[in-house]
């Protein structure tokens, strides 16, 4: 079974600075997909960014980018120019390619990101 590990229960960063959230996963599959979700205090789950394992290029969405290291099974999220609205729980998630990913995503336990004004 696949597992997703987020080793940082909590991170703190100054507003306008850059922060990196770590995620590692364990899988025997060669094709899969990785996601980062944000959960603000409202508890709404919001997709931040996704990465296809077959792509070597790291995904980028505005101030959010990933560092995907397939051999190391590492998928970190970098947030540049941190803003107060970035404060939230961040979850890393994995989806296999096999079976069309019908059995959903496997999530890490999350990292609580605090933004210091």
């Amino acid at each position, binding site marked *: 079974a696949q597992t997703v590990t987020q080793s940082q*229960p909590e991170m703190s960063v100054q507003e306008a600075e850059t922060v990196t959230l770590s995620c590692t996963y364990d899988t025997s599959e060669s*094709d899969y*997909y990785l*996601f980062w979700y944000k959960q603000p205090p*409202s*508890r*709404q*789950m919001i*997709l931040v960014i*996704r990465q*296809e394992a077959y792509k070597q290029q790291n995904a980028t969405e505005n101030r959010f980018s990933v560092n995907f290291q397939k051999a190391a099974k590492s998928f970190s999220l970098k947030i540049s120019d941190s803003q107060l609205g970035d404060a939230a729980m961040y*979850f890393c*998630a994995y*989806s*296999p*390619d*096999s*079976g*069309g*990913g*019908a*059995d*959903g*995503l*496997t*999530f*890490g*336990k*999350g990292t609580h990101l605090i933004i210091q004004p």
Partner: protein
Amino acid sequence: SQTIHQWPATLVQPVGSPLSLECTVEGTSNPNLYWYRQAAGRGLQLLFYSIGIDQISSEVPQNLSASRPQDRQFILSSKKLLLSDSGFYLCAWKAGFSNSPLHFGNGTRLTVT
């Protein structure tokens, strides 16, 4: 565009009472549907998923059950709630493609007293 509705937003129920949480999706057909539970500090745990009407897969043995009576309707039920059923329940849908992300409802906070 697609939207997902989940209700109720909050629920307080006594131990031993029944439970029914409902989720509906609009703007898409034949979605994959999911129920997750989020306990404090434990991330999201997949409870059930469905790839079609009356096709339900259970990920963990528990006091809960799920049903999908219509293509875009997913229901989480229990005949008798336990204290351990308290938590935050999230319904989600995704298209039937591997790279499709999950789209979540706003969640239900369930407190069993």
